[in-house]
């Protein structure tokens, strides 16, 4: 008996002929693109890019129509156009990232992150004065917001996941509504409620209050999601061992969801770290270090950027770009932290 080995075939894989066709369609589109861009008054890299996208769409469709007919062309067009949508969206993100790094790096130096603006102004040449006071101010604001918003957010999430009271639907709805509150309204509210009514004046504490309003919904929704991921068995085991509900929550559920709750906090911080509008009403202005969060204005990264742009000189704009680079780095660190901590919980499951 002889056995014949059948080689597995892959009829869907691209044959050399297909590859040659694809390459030729790309080359043809490139050639047409260059022709169109040079022949018309369009200019710039973006023009090349977009004209190429459109030409390739048409040229490749002509290839496909020969092989698969009208139905195949519609399918191929849909695949390409959705890809184009994703490409345009990514381009915007890369443009933003690139612009920040490109423009911001020029103003970065040691003084910029180790000094304050007490003895310097926005109009001084780069290298004199820095934004350390604003970095500290932003950190103080973040800490205040965490102290206020995280307990409130987690308790609300506990109500929605553990107690599931009668009002759960309403609360859920209100939390969603709260996440849509415009940031400027949060600032106006603190101004109207506290600065106009009490002797308290603009300070880091009031800024933290305004930011908490924006942070609570983010923390609540993320915390709710991770608490829902804690297996029911754990809760039931706790109760079956004779623990009261509050002990089960405090000793079993919350520790089980710990890394997820940290993620919730970090996402909340990322949400508020760059908020500017509420701070314009609530934190005031100060060029030096202010470690008292209750009295006196504080410099923060967003308000320093705001002021730098308002000043209107090239040096001020450069400072604004460099400050936003620092702010972006802070946000990116938060973002990466949230992802790594968050994925750790999912791996454990």
């Amino acid at each position, binding site marked *: 008996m002889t056995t014949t080995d059948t080689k597995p075939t892959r009829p869907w894989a691209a044959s050399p002929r297909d590859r040659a066709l694809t390459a030729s369609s790309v080359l043809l589109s490139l050639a047409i693109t260059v022709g169109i861009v040079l022949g018309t008054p369009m200019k710039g890299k973006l023009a090349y890019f977009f004209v190429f996208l459109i030409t390739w769409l048409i040229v490749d469709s002509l290839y496909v129509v020969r092989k698969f007919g009208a139905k195949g062309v*519609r*399918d191929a*067009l*849909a*695949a390409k156009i*959705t890809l184009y*949508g*994703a490409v345009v*969206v*990514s381009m915007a*993100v890369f*443009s*933003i990232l690139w*612009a920040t790094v490109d423009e911001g790096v020029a103003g970065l130096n040691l003084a910029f992150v180790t000094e304050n603006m007490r003895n310097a102004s926005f109009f001084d040449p780069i290298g004199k004065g820095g934004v350390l006071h604003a970095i500290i101010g932003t950190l103080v604001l973040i800490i205040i917001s965490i102290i206020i918003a995280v*307990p*409130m957010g987690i308790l*609300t999430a506990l109500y929605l996941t553990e107690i599931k*009271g009668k*009002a759960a639907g309403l*609360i859920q*709805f*209100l939390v*969603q*509504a*709260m996440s*849509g*509150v*415009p940031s*400027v*309204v*949060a600032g*106006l*509210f603190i101004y*109207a409620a506290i600065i*106009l009514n009490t002797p308290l004046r603009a300070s880091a504490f009031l800024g933290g209050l305004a930011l908490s*309003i924006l942070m*609570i919904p983010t923390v609540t*929704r993320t915390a*709710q*999601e991770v608490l829902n991921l804690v297996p029911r068995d754990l809760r039931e085991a706790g109760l079956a061992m004779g623990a*009261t*509900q*509050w002990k089960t929550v405090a000793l079993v559920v919350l520790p089980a969801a710990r890394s997820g709750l940290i993620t919730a906090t970090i996402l909340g911080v*990322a*949400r508020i*770290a*760059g908020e*500017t*509008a509420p701070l314009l*009403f609530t934190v005031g202005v100060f060029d030096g270090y202010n470690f008292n969060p209750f009295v006196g204005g504080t410099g923060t990264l*967003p308000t320093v*950027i*705001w002021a730098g*742009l308002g000043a209107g000189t090239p040096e001020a*704009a450069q400072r*604004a770009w460099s400050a*936003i680079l620092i*702010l*972006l780095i802070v946000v990116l660190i938060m973002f990466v932290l949230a*992802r790594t901590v968050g994925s750790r919980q999912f791996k454990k499951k």
Partner: protein
Amino acid sequence: MSIDAPAKVIPQARKITTKPRVSDQIFRAIVTGFSFSALVILALIAAFLLLKGFSTLRDQGFGFITNFEWNVTLDESGKEIADFGLQAMLVGTMVISLIAVVIAVPLSVLTALFLTFYAPERVKRILVTIVDLMAAFPSILYGLWGLFILMPMAVYWAELLHKWLGWIPLFDVPQPVFTRSPFIAGLVLAVMIIPIITSVSREVFAQTPLDRVQAAYALGATKWGVIKAVVLPFGANGVVGGSMLGLGRAFGETVAVYFVLNIVFRSNFEILFSQGGNVASMIVLKFGEAGETEIGALMASGLVLFLLTLVVNFIANAVVNRTVKSGR
């Protein structure tokens, strides 16, 4: 053999109750109390803005919404004459938010479709990160980018639009000034609301019943056929809801719009012209030099903006919740 068996002790029957212990009652009371913080905060915001803006609303009446002058002048006796009208700002807010939605929705839906149906696993993970990252960018960064990077390009696009489509009243301009126009503000807002519309759409598309998808494939549909016949009809509501969430975001955006829009108190529908309005940015713009009367008017504006976004968000969430049953 008379060893007395020990008398059987029958323990008292334990009382079975569902009443929580005292500690649990305290726990439940505290958690329930704090969970109403959302309600309290929303109510307080409305109450204080109404309190401080009440005099303006009383003096201006319905004209606060329909007039478009905004000035405080002194008459001969030194009395303040205040004219506050939000019409131009409200119209401007609508115009730029609609531009943003019109640009962002197609891009977001395409991206969501690509992510759900076309992207290979690796590309998908990177792209999801990119979209999430977009949502985490501070709004002032969008403002800066819009002002320095996007504006020069967008002015050129606006000139092209005007040149070829200028005969449509929407794209006409009284003078050839294209910077800081509603069009550019709308572009920046579009980039800002893409992440939320994309993530809601993706969530909805991913919930398309698998049996229907597979049935369509079994009938010989192409991928596009499946999307057109099954996925889009199923997800349409969710996309509408997501777009409205984006609209609500766009209504309330302050800082980014402030940098790229020339705020003028005149209702302007010529979107390429350098004149526009935005309630939130106007509040920040006027706040610096506002006197006591004007602060009241700004509070009233804040109230209008708050209620507007609240209504849009309520409707949007209701629509999305009906489509997506998961805990969004």
